[in-house]
Structures are given as structure tokens and as C-alpha cells.
């Protein structure tokens, strides 16, 4: 059995999909160059008011409540892609018949999805969830299903062997619109059948085969088979599409974030719905905005506009599928990086990935929810700056203090008894490897004593850095610093009571950014006691500065 999904008035429905508020209004879609625009499609409410296809825009001025929209090929493409996604979520054999029409093979799906009426109902419901109102027909062959979907509204099920009986009530026009290769050919055939007095498919099916062949050739035989519902063919199966795009062309440019967020929300919901039908999630989200800007010379009367694009990319550490989270992330990102010009077109595309699968455990440590964590990071980045939040990665260089801040994406928890090894790098010359093992999760006296044996190595004394380093005036005696006065902080001054060093290091001598330094660890008394500092002399310019304080 085959099913056909047909979207009547596809151009109108592609627009209503992103503007569901217009469903209760009469809507007409115009095409053509201004001022010669004509109605190419309209919905039922518009037909009830008397509007007809082909009417010019000036003729439509009599209808006050009629909503006019310009045809959007981008939205039609998105709607058709959503339709195919929906069909492919039910069956692997899907034919991309025409814009707004899809055929799918339902053979063998009964054990998985239930009886045919249930499959048809679920399919229609899924399409309606996509924001499209479809005619759906199920028949024994693809062409019969296609004709029934074009001819009958709602859900139609044609039992096997009764195709001719059910299709007989349809007019010949439907057959010609659906299958004739060109408009000219269809017009010729309509005239011919009209002269013969044939209006319905039943009459065409009843014609003797040989005279039809003599007068209309093989095409006539094919049409007669279609009218009987007896034409057999294979589906032109569509390959899997993993591109999830949504586009909106705006008639009036958007300059504020709120209306943009409103549109983005609708687009994100559509993208998520399409991904959900394939059991996929979003790994990367790209927002491309086409901006309209006027030339710098505003006094120019020509007022020509040209478009430029503004692209933002959200790379998610784990695949997610929550339209609200995406919307908030995009809002925060656009607040931090505003486009800077009115927006005339929105294009949203998503890279898909398998959804995150996590096996929870009673004894695993707590872990932030990825969606919540991403929102928190975005908000924190809005407060302190994008480059000041993240996880640290030490760079593979001997240069002191070289690190990079990466996007924070913590890995899943490892077993608690894993051996942790890490490498210590200090000043490029002092390297040690230390292995530590920790296996206690509760803090009891017994476990504390057990751990104490492993942690007898002691606490590593830490350095607190001054960013930027504090300039210092240093008195040197016998090649050793003996007195210090900080240029920025008056409280750091005095005699150096202990010194250790120097540690000399240099690097990148072959490049312009070469460095050479001499490092001292010193102790300077203050009001409360001795304070340990790291004192560094830049050997390239001879300046001294305090790099940090041991604490």
C-alpha cells in the first residue's frame, strides 16, 4: 500500500506555517513584478469571499480584510523539506513527487505502526504538527493514492481492487493537472475529452482501449490506466536528507530584538520538530541574517540598498533539542553581538547529531544539565565577557603563564578510583610527574587516615598572579635583589630578607616575540609577617616586576 500527502494551496500554507495567526483570515499569495502582481494561490476563506486566482493587485483593493503576501520560495522549500522529513519518519521509501506532494510506501509497516487507518491518522496528525494542512490518501498503487489525495479532502483510504470505483467520481481535470507533461498538452487533452463529452474518470475508464489508443496514442492508454487506478510503477525513492534549514524573507526589515526573537522561536520550533521526527538533535546552529543597509551617502536620492550577511554560529558541546534553550542562547548571543543593521532575511540551519544518551548512576557525582549549563555560561559571558569564562588549557610552551581559555564543556564523570596523572610544568625546566589516587567519597575518620598515606606528599604551594604584573624598583647588591619598592602598590616595599634564585629561562629567540627572563623567589616583610613573591627581571629591557605572590 502507498500513501500520498498532498498540501493544497501549498504557497499559502508555506506562509501560514510561520504565521499561524493568519489561518482564520482570507489570505492570497501574489507573484510577479510590481505593479503587475497577480494572485497565484489563495486559501479557502479567500475563495469564499469571491477572490479568484489570476486577479491583479489593484482588483483586490475591494476586499478590505484580505491579507496579501508575496510568494516566498525559501519558505516553500522549508515547508517541503519539513513534509519530506515527516514522511521519512514513517517510511524509508519516500518519493519527492512535487512541491507540497510526497508519496511513501507503507508496505510492511503494519506490525510496527499498527493498521493502515491508524498509520494514516498518525501521519496526518504529524503533518498538522508541522503547521501544514494536508490531504492524505492510501491506495494500492502510488498514482491512485496521488489522484485521491488531489481529489478528496482529509483522509481517504481506498481498499485494494476498488480504485476505479472510488476514483470514478473525480473530474478529468485532476488527472491532467497531475500527470500531463505540459500545460499546452493538458489543454489539448481537456479540449479533446470535452468534445467527446467525457467529464469524469469513470467515463474515461469505460472507453474501449483500442479506439483510445488509435486517437491518443500511448499517452491515452496511460491516462486510461490511471483513471482505472490500475497503473503500476515503482517509487523514485529519495535519499536521506540531513540538512535542516529554515528561511524567512521579511517584507519590512526588523530592527529590534523582540520581533526577531518571535520569528526565531517559530523557526527553531520547526527545526526541532523536523529533527525530532528523525530522532536527531542539534549539534551546531547557524544563524545567517541578511542585512539591508543604505549607502554611506544618505543624501543620495537613489537610496539604493545592498545586502550583506551577518552570521552567528552556536556550537553546542552536547547535542540538544530544546527550542527554548536555543532561542535564549541566540538572544544572549545577539545581545552581545548585535547585527548593526535592519534584517531583511533570516536563514537558520542546524547540523544534526545523535541525541545525548546518558546512563545515570546512583554513585556518580552530580553533573550540571548541559542545557542549563549552556544558558548559565552564556549569561556569565554577558556579565564578565566571552573570553573571561571557560576552562583553562595550558599551552605546550615554556613561556611562563601561557594558557588558553576554552569553552567549558566538562567531560562525563570518570570512575572515582581512576589513577590521575598530571604533568607539572614550571618555568620550562622544572618538570615532575605526580600520581595521586583518591578513592574516598565520604569523609570519615578511617577513610581520612587511609587517604593521608596517599596525600603525605603535601600541598603544593600555589602562586597568586598579579594581572598585569606590578612594576617594581629593585636595588641590586652583589647581583642579588636586596630591596624592593612596588611602583603600583605602596604596601609592597621593604628589604628582601630571603631570596632564592635566579632561574633563567628564554625562548622564541628566532622570532620577533622572543623572551628572556630571570626569576627570583623573595620574602619581604609587611605588617603581618613575611610575604613570598615571585620577582622577575626581563633580560631584554632590564625591567623588574612582581609576577605573583605565593600563598
Amino acid at each position, binding site marked *: 500500500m502507498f500513501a500520498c500527502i498532498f498540501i493544497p494551496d501549498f504557497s499559502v500554507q508555506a506562509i501560514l506555517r510561520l504565521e499561524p495567526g493568519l489561518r482564520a483570515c482570507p489570505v492570497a499569495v501574489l507573484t510577479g513584478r510590481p505593479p503587475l502582481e497577480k494572485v497565484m494561490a489563495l486559501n479557502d476563506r479567500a475563495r469564499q469571499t469571491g477572490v479568484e486566482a489570476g486577479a491583479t493587485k489593484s482588483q483586490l483593493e475591494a476586499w478590505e480584510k484580505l491579507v496579501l503576501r508575496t510568494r516566498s520560495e525559501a519558505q516553500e522549500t522549508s515547508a517541503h523539506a519539513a513534509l519530506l522529513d515527516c514522511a521519512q519518519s514513517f517510511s524509508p521509501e519516500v518519493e519527492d513527487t512535487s512541491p507540497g506532494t510526497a508519496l511513501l510506501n507503507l508496505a510492511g509497516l503494519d506490525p510496527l505502526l499498527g493498521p493502515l487507518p491508524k498509520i494514516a491518522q498518525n501521519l496526518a496528525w504529524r503533518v498538522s504538527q508541522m503547521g501544514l494542512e494536508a490531504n492524505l490518501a492510501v491506495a494500492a498503487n502510488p498514482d491512485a493514492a496521488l489522484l485521491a489525495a488531489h481529489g478528496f479532502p482529509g483522509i481517504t483510504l481506498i481498499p485494494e481492487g476498488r480504485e476505479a470505483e472510488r476514483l470514478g467520481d473525480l473530474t478529468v481535470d485532476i488527472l491532467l493537472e497531475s500527470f500531463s507533461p505540459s500545460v499546452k498538452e493538458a489543454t489539448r487533452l481537456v479540449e479533446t475529452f470535452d468534445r467527446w463529452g467525457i467529464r469524469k474518470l469513470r467515463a474515461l475508464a469505460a472507453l474501449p482501449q483500442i479506439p483510445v489508443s488509435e486517437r491518443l496514442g500511448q499517452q491515452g492508454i496511460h491516462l486510461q490506466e490511471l483513471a482505472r487506478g490500475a497503473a503500476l510503477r515503482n517509487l523514485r525513492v529519495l535519499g536521506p536528507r540531513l540538512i535542516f534549514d529554515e528561511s524567512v524573507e521579511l517584507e519590512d526589515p526588523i530592527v529590534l530584538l523582540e520581533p526577531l526573537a518571535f520569528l526565531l522561536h517559530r523557526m527553531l520550533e520547526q527545526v526541532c520538530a523536523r529533527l525530532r521526527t528523525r530522532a536527531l538533535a542539534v549539534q551546531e546552529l547557524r544563524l545567517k541574517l541578511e542585512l539591508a543597509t543604505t549607502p554611506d551617502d544618505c543624501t543620495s536620492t537613489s537610496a539604493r540598498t545592498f545586502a550583506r550577511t551577518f552570521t552567528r554560529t552556536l556550537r553546542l558541546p552536547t547535542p540538544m533539542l530544546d527550542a527554548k534553550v536555543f532561542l535564549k542562547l541566540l538572544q544572549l548571543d545577539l545581545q552581545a553581538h548585535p547585527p548593526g543593521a535592519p534584517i531583511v532575511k533570516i536563514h537558520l540551519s542546524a547540523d544534526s547529531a545523535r541525541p545525548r544518551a546518558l546512563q545515570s548512576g546512583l554513585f556518580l557525582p552530580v553533573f550540571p544539565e548541559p542545557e542549563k549549563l549552556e544558558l548559565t555560561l552564556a549569561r556569565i559571558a554577558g556579565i564578565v565577557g566571552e573570553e573571561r569564562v571557560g576552562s583553562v588549557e595550558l599551552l605546550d610552551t615554556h613561556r611562563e603563564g601561557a594558557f588558553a581559555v576554552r569553552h567549558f564543556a566538562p567531560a562525563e564523570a570518570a570512575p572515582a578510583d581512576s589513577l590521575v596523572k598530571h604533568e607539572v610544568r614550571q618555568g620550562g625546566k622544572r618538570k615532575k610527574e605526580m600520581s595521586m589516587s583518591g578513592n574516598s567519597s565520604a569523609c570519615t575518620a578511617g577513610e581520612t587516615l587511609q587517604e593521608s598515606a596517599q596525600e603525605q606528599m603535601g600541598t603544593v604551594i600555589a602562586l597568586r598572579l598579579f594581572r598585569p604584573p606590578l612594576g617594581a624598583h629593585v636595588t641590586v647588591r652583589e647581583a642579588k635583589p636586596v630591596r624592593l619598592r612596588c611602583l603600583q602598590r605602596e604596601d609592597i616595599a621593604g628589604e628582601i630578607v630571603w631570596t632564592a634564585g635566579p632561574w633563567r629561562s628564554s625562548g622564541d629567540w628566532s622570532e620577533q616575540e622572543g623572551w628572556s627572563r630571570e626569576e627570583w623567589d623573595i620574602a619581604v616583610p609587611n605588617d603581618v609577617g613575611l610575604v613570598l613573591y615571585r620577582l622577575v627581571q626581563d633580560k631584554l629591557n632590564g*625591567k623588574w616586576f612582581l609576577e605573583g605572590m605565593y600563598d
Partner: protein
Amino acid sequence: MSASPVLSSAAIGRPFIFSPPSSPRSMREKTAQKTAEILAHVGATPKLAAVVPASRLDGRPAPEMVPSGIPQLDWLTGGLARGCLTEICGTASSGRTSVLLFALARATQHGEVCALVDASDAFDPASAAAAGMEMSRLLWVRCGETRGVSRLRPFRAAQRPAAPQSPAENGSDFGRWKSQLGQMLKVTDLLLQSNGFGMIALDLGDVPVESARRIPLTSWFRFRRAVEHTPTALVVLEQQPIAGSCSSVLVKVSGRRAQGAGKKLSAFSSQLSGNSLRHSELPHTELLDQVEITVELLHSRLQNKLEKKPVQSTASFKSRAAWAG
């Protein structure tokens, strides 16, 4: 109040409520009788005055303790309490940062996700790596200026020391730290709301005491309420206690130089004597190794929940240089 019987009409239809007629006098009598009964019942109820406040209930669940990684500190305090605020205070070079980094390192090694809100941008990644930190599980938030940071050329930045500040902008000026502290409070709020962090550390180690004490006490109350009943241990590093009654545990850290073999060295902190100081040269391992860090438990609201320990409020351990074996 008397109950009204619900009757239904003979015909099929909606039931109606029918109140029997009663005189106002009989109503007053009934009300007085009921009141007397209730008062008699209340009077007969024993020990109403002996209700124990919930805060003093012995059955109050003790918070889960997470080891700090330093056995002496764990022995003294029981570890760091989840769902509570712990203060670690100490002066410069007392070893407080080493304690904090070691606790963070221990938590990250056990698979927990931690956050460090660095109010003064003083975190040294190399020290954290030396302490055994799993860097991928530590979220580092640097408060301060929001302009871009030169990450790949820090040394060049070092060659351009900061411009001298006027006395008004000196460390005692709250205005200088206002933006950093404001950012720190906002970021901490967000982190506490996001849940899932094993430990959140606020580093106020370089913030002058005068400025740190100007953080509204309501902020600490808010943090305490936000972290309550969560698996997060909130740790604040500071020079002097600032959270008041909001902190569950207050620990003071002080460091002093241990007596080296064959060396006559003075103590580090309060035992410092100016007359005994002489300029001396030491190798790195002598100066930074074997610094004795003393931890003193100033107060703990969890003490009655912990196991009984010997009466002792201090514990000491020795630090080592990062490159020492």
C-alpha cells in the same frame, strides 16, 4: 456552625439545600457550647509549651561532607560541607590559596564539576595543574574588565606594567573593587541557580577587607539559602571573615616557615622578629618547601553533628614546592 442536610426534591432535577429553621438564640447557645468544648480540649492537651524549635531538633540531618584532600583539615573540620557556606580566611602567603586549590583539585579528580569565581583575577593555571586539578572540570570565571585578554602573549603584557594609580584608587578604595564584586555576586547567583556543581569557590583573597565587608549581608544570606539542600559546597576565600552567621564553618589559615635542617630560620608570620632577620640566600626548595600551614577552626555550626573528636582546634601540615618530588 451547624450542618445543613442536603435533601432532594421528589421530582427529578437538581438537588437543593434545605436549612431547617433555627432561632438566633439557639444558635448563640450552640456556639458558646462549642467554644467551651474547644477550650477544655486545648487545656487538657499536655506539654504544648514543650514544643522544640526545628532548628534545635537532634534529628536534623547532618550535611554530607566532601573531603578537602588535606587529611589534617578533614580531621579537624570533617571536610567541606555540601549545601553549606565555608569560609577560609588568612593573610597573604598564609597558604589559603594552596588549601583552596587542593580542595578543588581533589573534587575535580573525583569527577565533580567545580567553579572558581576569581574576583581579583589571580588564579594561576600552572599552580592548579601542579595541585592535580582536572582542568576540563573547572569553570574559571575572571571578574574584572570585560575587554579582551591577551592569552597567547602574556609575557608581552608583562612587559607593559600597569599605569601607576592615584592614592584615591588605592586598594582601600571600594570603587576600584565595586565592579568586580558586583560581577562576582551576579555570577555566583547564576552558578548556584544552575545546580550540578560539586564545589563553587569564591576567591576574594586580594580584595581589601574594607571592600569585602561592604558586600551586603543579604547577599550572603541569599547564597546560603540558594546552596542549602543542594550537593554544592560553597567555599569563600578571604582575608578576614565577612559572611558572619551565614557561614557554617570558618577556618583560619596561617603559614610559617618550618625549621630547616641545619638552618636557623625565623618563623614566617606573627613570630617574625625584625632583629633576627638577615638577608640570606636559599635555593628554591629551601624557601618554598616545607612551609608549615596551620589550620585553625574558628567556628563550626556543624560540630554537634560531627563525630566526636579530641578537643583541638588547630592542625598543621607542610607544603612543598611544585617541582619537589
